[in-house]
């Protein structure tokens, strides 16, 4: 039996029936990582010892015939911007190269409570800033389906690891598509939950009003299992909410419906015309249209809808995100944590100054800041901090940041209106399949455009799923399914239909 290709449910069954032990399972994944990850480069750190000892704990429970949770012994990978206590957490940045997490993120606590085996931390664009995983300060992850292509970003390491069977499931984070885009490029399932469904405590913040942690998995059922494990109210994140029928009475409607397939015709699907635009790869469009046809053939009602402010979403997103980034990344000052090579003494190489001149000494606190940050942050991170500082600075705040927030209201209202008559929205995840390594690194704007179909769900806080729906040659194509707030169940059930 090939242990590393099993889903969570299959693995769980295998453990229960004692077809294999959790230790054998963990060893199988670790061996595969050792062998395959040299070319894929999805992991930044692998926790061999702690993974094996966690697996033994699960085996002991099974031997004692104790009931084990679904995720007990399940080998998973964690994006390296989510804190795991006692382990290095780099966020893909030189500035945190030697940072060790002092505590567990809440989502990690939830995984550990079930006995999940954490195999290691996966690569990402530095602080989540990127759509290709090429902005990592350490390595460039490759797409397992074609090593000359990017895995997508920023959770590219997690998506590639799931696709290459280097883990059973993974956690990523999504600020403007960072779970869904790599999921679509790597042909795995990626869920960005509703804003507030999963605690952000212990996630290294990028843009706090947009960030969400979510699962990447081999199928929709697995994504659901992980999502259910990590979601819920957390006193350490005041924006997190309890998934409660009282607050969101719509949540469970579909669940009841989906149990009887006959009633599928009650679920209405909306196809936003603004997401089928010129310039889209015609093969992608064809595959996505075929997927939509599948739903139609099952008797689900399909309706064309309009989300009129779609064309402004990407611009508004990049302004809001960069503004929040510039504030969140102010904490990396070389004083409290992370690297600060310049806090004391003379640097013989000469250091950067704001005016571009080189100065040989660190005279004051300002020098420490300038040089720690100028050297510790990579190019894209510096670019976003500059952009966000500009859009928040006196004289530009109203024209850019405030205006973008108003556009955000309009985008949200578009969705509110659409969801009055439909239940889910289907769109392509990306206008193109995975692109080549290096293809977009010289033009930041071209890279930003990769997120064009992704960002609206973040601005509106909606749950969104990327499901594999076909391939162009070797390269997977993703279908995006957007749902009403806290209707993760609905979009996951809708996604499952494609798997049949």
């Amino acid at each position, binding site marked *: 039996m090939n242990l590393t290709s099993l889903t969570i449910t299959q693995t769980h069954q295998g453990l229960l029936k004692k077809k294999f032990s959790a230790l054998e399972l963990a060893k199988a994944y670790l061996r595969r990582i050792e062998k395959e990850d040299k070319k894929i480069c999805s992991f930044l750190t692998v926790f061999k010892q702690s993974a094996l000892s966690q697996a033994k704990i699960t085996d002991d429970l099974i031997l004692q015939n104790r009931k084990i949770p679904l995720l007990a012994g399940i080998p998973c990978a964690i994006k390296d911007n989510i804190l795991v206590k006692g382990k290095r957490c780099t966020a893909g940045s030189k500035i945190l190269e030697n940072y060790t997490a*002092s505590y567990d993120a809440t989502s990690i606590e939830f995984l550990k409570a079930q006995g999940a085996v954490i195999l290691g931390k996966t690569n990402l664009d530095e602080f989540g800033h990127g759509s290709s995983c090429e902005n990592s300060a350490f390595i460039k992850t490759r797409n397992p389906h074609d090593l000359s292509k990017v895995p997508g970003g920023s959770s590219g390491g997690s998506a590639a690891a799931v696709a290459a069977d280097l883990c059973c499931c993974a956690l990523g984070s999504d600020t403007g598509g960072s779970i869904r885009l790599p999921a679509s490029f790597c042909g795995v399932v990626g869920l960005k939950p509703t804003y*507030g469904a999963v605690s952000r405590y212990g996630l290294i913040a990028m843009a706090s009003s947009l960030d969400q942690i979510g699962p990447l998995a081999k199928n929709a059922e697995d994504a659901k299992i992980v999502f259910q494990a990590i979601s819920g109210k957390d006193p350490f994140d005041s924006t997190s909410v309890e998934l409660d029928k009282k607050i969101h009475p719509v949540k469970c409607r579909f669940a009841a419906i989906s149990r009887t397939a006959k009633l599928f015709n009650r679920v209405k699907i909306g196809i936003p015309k603004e997401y089928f635009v010129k310039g889209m790869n015609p093969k992608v469009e064809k595959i996505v249209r075929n997927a939509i046809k599948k739903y139609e053939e099952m008797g689900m009602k399909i309706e064309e809808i309009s989300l009129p402010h779609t064309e402004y979403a990407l*611009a508004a997103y990049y*302004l809001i995100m960069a503004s929040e980034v510039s504030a969140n990344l102010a904490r990396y000052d070389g004083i409290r*944590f992370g690297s600060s090579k310049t*806090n004391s003494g003379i640097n013989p190489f000469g250091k950067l100054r704001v005016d571009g001149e080189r100065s040989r000494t660190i005279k004051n606190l300002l020098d420490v800041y300038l040089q720690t940050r100028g050297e510790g942050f990579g190019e894209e991170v510096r670019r976003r901090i*500059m952009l966000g500082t500009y859009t928040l600075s006196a004289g530009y705040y109203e024209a*850019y940041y405030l205006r973008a927030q108003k556009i*955000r209201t309009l985008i949200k209202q578009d969705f509110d209106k659409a969801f009055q008559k439909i239940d889910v929205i289907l769109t392509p995840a990306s206008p193109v399949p995975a692109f080549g390594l290096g293809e977009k690194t010289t033009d930041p704007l071209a890279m930003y455009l990769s997120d064009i179909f992704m960002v609206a769900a973040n601005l509106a806080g909606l749950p969104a799923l990327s499901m594999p729906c076909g391939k162009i040659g070797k390269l997977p194509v993703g279908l995006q399914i957007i749902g009403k707030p806290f209707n993760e169940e609905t979009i996951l059930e809708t996604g499952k239909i494609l798997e049949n």
Partner: protein
Amino acid sequence: MISKQEVQHIAKLARLGLSQKEIKKFEKELSSILDYAKKIKKIDVSKVRATTHPFFLENVTREDRVKKQKPTLANKLVEATPEKKGRYVKVKSVL
């Protein structure tokens, strides 16, 4: 267009040390990104309220009581600082 002076001013606000080459590059790149972002000026938003968070948020309050943490956590946090003297965080003099 963003001028060289503006780039330098923003870099100072952001506490980012930049090289001459980078200042030039940012002049060009930030200008082109902001040029793209200008499309949001096309719509009238005079009657629209700003959205800071996707959903209605309530103030979350708790009792003003210190939650006990293990002393080892505090030690770990101090250990994480790049420069320290005993259990104090060391910085360059501010005044």
